[in-house]
């Protein structure tokens, strides 16, 4: 090793100290960044899982927990509800609409599994899915109301919808939700719009809550069945059976409501009223008395009242 000049050593040592001062904060930053950014995509999902798992027991069994609401902007309660919802077999009606956002315990599970894979879609922020019941009404003035109504009904059939009610040229139809906008536009385009309105009712909360309730009720029922197997006393058996009946009724009621909501969401309701331009006002013409006097003196009214 070549010896350095005595005067150079203090200077070199001083330069290293400066370098060390500069490197230390930089290394600290790198290590911090590594602990944060260096985690896998799974770890970010797992972190949200931890939150939801802490709130709901069932969520811990659901590998998709947290994947549904990846933005974290919603409240914990919402996240918990969705986790219940995803784990529930009864809510499979939503699976299709959610398939792009990674969820579901069966078919849609494929997307959620991608969360841990290299699929770029899995790491993208999934969208929230809303349960919306669309309905609307349009009143239009057309040249021939009957023809317009018939043509509209033909389109409704093509869209997979059906006529629910008809009064003259006013029709109420149910159409698949994905065709609601097209149907609404079709009525508007038929003539001059006299009035129109439409709305979307959000039943996501109710749907999710019902999912939680039915899930809890089922688990309670399963536990009661186990208890029933162990019960020895007649009195105990009767009490358990009574509770089982109550739970079964509750489950059926909730399932019915879920089915109804699913139907309402999948099929929109549209009221279309076609009104003829030349429709005459319905004013009854006043009776014209006969020019022959004697005719005015006869008739059913004269016999029954002026007899």
């Amino acid at each position, binding site marked *: 090793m070549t010896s350095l000049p005595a005067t150079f050593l203090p200077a070199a040592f001083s330069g290293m100290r400066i370098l060390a001062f500069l490197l230390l904060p930089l290394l600290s930053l790198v290590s911090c960044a590594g602990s944060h950014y260096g985690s896998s995509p799974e770890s970010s999902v797992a972190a949200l899982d931890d939150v939801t798992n802490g709130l709901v027991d069932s969520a811990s069994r659901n590998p998709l927990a947290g994947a549904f609401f990846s933005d974290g902007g919603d409240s914990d309660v919402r996240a918990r509800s969705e986790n219940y919802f995803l784990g529930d077999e009864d809510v499979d009606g939503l699976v299709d609409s959610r398939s792009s956002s990674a969820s579901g315990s069966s078919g849609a599970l494929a997307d959620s599994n991608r969360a841990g894979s290299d699929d770029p879609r899995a790491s993208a922020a999934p969208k929230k899915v809303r349960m919306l019941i669309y309905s609307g009404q349009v009143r239009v003035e057309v040249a021939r109301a009957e023809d317009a109504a018939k043509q509209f009904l033909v389109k409704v059939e093509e869209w997979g919808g059906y006529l629910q009610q008809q009064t003259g040229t006013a029709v109420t139809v149910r159409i698949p939700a994905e065709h609601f906008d097209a149907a609404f536009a079709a009525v508007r385009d038929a003539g001059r719009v006299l009035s129109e309105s439409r709305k979307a009712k959000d039943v996501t909360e109710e749907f999710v809550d019902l999912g939680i309730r039915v899930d809890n009720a089922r688990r309670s029922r399963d536990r009661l069945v186990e208890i029933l197997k162990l019960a020895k006393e007649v009195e105990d058996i009767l009490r358990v059976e009574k509770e089982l009946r109550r739970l079964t009724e509750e489950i059926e009621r909730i399932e019915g409501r879920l089915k109804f909501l699913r139907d309402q969401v999948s099929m929109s309701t549209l009221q279309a009223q076609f009104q003829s331009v030349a429709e005459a006002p319905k004013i009854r013409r006043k*009776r014209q008395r006969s020019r*022959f006097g*004697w005719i005015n003196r006869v*008739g059913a009214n004269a016999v*029954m009242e002026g*007899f």
Partner: protein
Amino acid sequence: MSKLTKNLSLLAVAVTAIACATPIQLPAAFVELGDSGEGYRAITSDDARIWVRELYDPTPGNVEFWAGSLERDFVQERGYELLGKGDVKNFANRDGRWLEFSTNVRGVRVDYLVAVWVDTTWFGSGNWIHVVEFAANHDVYSERIESVRAALATVR
């Protein structure tokens, strides 16, 4: 009593009999109203009504004209529903027309039959229209109509 007096007496009885003859032979269950209302009126206990009148109109028309005018007025102006129409002969074998309608009077369905015969005035400036009307609530009408139709042949 001389022969002349006897003949005059017989003539007076005949004239009185003719003058007092009812304009229609009433079907069973009808009774003539005893008040002094217009025309000849009869009624049943279930409120079926017959009204026979002679009404004058200065317009010289035949029976087809007047029957057509009645139909048009009842259907187009009053909203009656025409149930049927046809020919009818009276006691003197004269041609007349009948028309049958359904309507509402004070919210109750009333069926109504009208038959007309037409006489021209002796000075030829107008018509005497012989009108027979029968009206009743639908159920009562259905029970009585056949006997009233038969009675139309007795109209004088």
